[in-house]
């Protein structure tokens, strides 16, 4: 299976093959929500 950016280290892989852009955004939001947020200050 040949995929672009298959090498590790370029970010957490998100499979887009069978998902629409909206679904990919939903998946990323789900992952973000599931991770503890570090402290942010502007």
């Amino acid at each position: 299976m040949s995929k672009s950016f298959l090498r590790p280290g370029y970010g957490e892989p998100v499979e887009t093959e069978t998902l629409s852009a909206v679904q990919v955004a939903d998946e990323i939001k789900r992952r973000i929500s599931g991770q503890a947020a570090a402290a942010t200050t502007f």
Partner: protein
Amino acid sequence: MIVLLNGSFGVGKATVARHLQEKLDKTSIFNPEQVGLLLSRVGVPLHFVKSETDDFQDIPQWRRLTVEGVRLWRHVLRRNVIVPMTIANPEYFDEIRSGLVQIDPDLRLFCLMAELQTIKTRLNSCGVDLASADGRWISARLA
């Protein structure tokens, strides 16, 4: 929070970034591609920086301005920032990641993936002719 969306040309980073922006609170998009276009317009001579390159990512100023641009963007807008950009060079990726995490420790890194044929199909649907000069430039960087 800073969300870096990496992935191949044509995989859909910009489109996903727009949808993600709609789904997250107080979030804006910073496109480093615009930094590259700016550098091109002001005439930064690519061939002086690194011989035989036609990629603005090889310009050290692009990498620094990308990080500083995110810093400024975030500071002025007071929003989370989504950064969609293809960064395939591991040294450049590490340099930008290191810079971004100093701006905001809440840095989320994602890499959108798809089969090469799917990416080519998506590029075609966006009107990119892979046989053209620009298309060949992109095609050489898909693998």
